[in-house]
């Protein structure tokens, strides 16, 4: 089965910030926080195409997002902070500090159509 594992890193993006201010229900915001940045080679390895819907899953949850190719390192996947990314991260996993693993949650990504 096609797919790839690595670390999910949540980040701020300009668009995420700007669209959030117009309202967290607005479609542009929801689009942006559901857009995953991934290395093109990772994408090829996982048999995914730019713009494709992919399923991202961690031991705490799963989400469906759109992937786009980006100049990020391999095996690191970047998703804007927000309610979508937050379904993959757990508050029970903070190493006693109160800070969840927003910068390094182990996830697996696979094309969404395979899931159906």
């Amino acid at each position, binding site marked *: 089965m096609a797919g790839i594992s690595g670390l999910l890193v949540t980040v701020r993006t300009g668009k995420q910030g700007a669209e959030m201010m117009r309202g967290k229900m607005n479609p542009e915001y929801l689009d942006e926080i559901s857009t995953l940045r991934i290395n093109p080679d990772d994408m090829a390895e996982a048999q995914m195409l730019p713009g494709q819907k992919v399923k991202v899953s961690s031991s705490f949850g799963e989400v469906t997002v759109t992937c786009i190719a980006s100049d990020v390192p391999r095996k690191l996947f970047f998703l804007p902070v927000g309610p979508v990314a937050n379904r993959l991260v757990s*508050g029970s996993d903070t190493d006693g*500090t*109160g800070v969840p693993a927003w*910068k390094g949650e182990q996830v697996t990504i696979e094309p969404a159509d395979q899931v159906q």
Partner: protein
Amino acid sequence: MDQELKVHSDVICTFCGCLCDDIEVEVVDNRISKVKKACMIGRNKLMHAQSNNPDITIAGKPTSLDAAINEAVNILTNARFPLVYGLSSTTTEAQREMVEIAEILNATIDNPSSYCHGPGLMARQQVGLSSCTLGEVKNRADLVIFWGCNPLESHVRHLTRYSVSAKGMFHPEGRKSRKIVSIDIRPTPTTKSSDWFIQVTPGNTFEIATLLRALVANNPIGKGDDALIAGVAVSKWRELAEMIRGCKYGVIFFGLGVTQCRGRDINVEQLAVLVSEINNHTRFYAMAMRGHGNVAGGNQVMTWQTGFPLAVNFSRGYPRYNPGEFSVIGLLARKEVDAALIVATDPGAHLPADTGDHLKNIPVIYLEPHNNPTTEWATVVIPVAQAGVAASGTYYRMDNVPLRVKKIVDSDHLSDEEVLKRIKERITHAQNY
């Protein structure tokens, strides 16, 4: 009909820790019609400040303010382990009320810094921090290091107002006379505008800071020059250490890439010791890239009132502190809280889903100017006048410089401070104080 136009200058944008205070806002008939000088985020924040306000509701049903406040008081006084949470996007005047309410209720109080820059505060509690105000950076800094942060997307005007291209007293040419270094795990707009981008492997902030300490102080290390630390050769790190020692006034801005990655608070602890030790050679400082407009103020208020900047519990009538134990995320993940008063933050969007979900199972009172994921399920929703737009008060910039945000339009709603005062008075009355 004539429209009344008012132009407000030097308005303070309340979005991020930069608190840019040069914004121009035009108001026509009490509606904000134009925003100048702000970044896109700030502009959107101001332009949409007056729209999308929620109704006053209890369990989703519209009600009166009085009834909502009564219900809030009822919930809070009956709770056995209540949480007061938020503070970050409102005035210190409102934050003070929140601390007092938490105290009267013997509740736990926390703010979002506990999962953002709280680790930096915990680090300061172990070793301190050498820091400065943003104007020092603008006027003096000849070396600026952005570490685990991407201000071009999160603090958009930081570089032009304070840290990179700002024309300072001793840097009249702005960008040209400064060296800019970025340490990050991926290219970003910020790394691309730096002189030197050091791309590192994730989760290794602590190792980098450890090595830099050794290199700056000439301590022995057990690695050769070709060995990789965070994916970068020791020799490269040595170059950075030389650059650091050679500068006149250097500053590290650190972001969530430092505080939220593997190690959390000890990353900042090591970074703070590094910065402290560099001062044996030259002047050197570090500053947290604080996010929400007044999250720094929340830490200040909690510290002068309770002694601690975050994660404070009043179960015994006096303040006690322990991040992890009394942090909002720990409390909710362990499902320890039985009611919550939440002001000026959006747990529905910001918290991990499994953590935020506990809030859906307990009564939550929510003060917020706009509809958002939390207003959808909060038990009592009380819309408020937005600070810096329809309410005035104090905000602390990321360097803890306090500024007064102004009221520039009228709102139908009370401010956080006013609603909280009413809640507090009725709690006091209900508890027969």
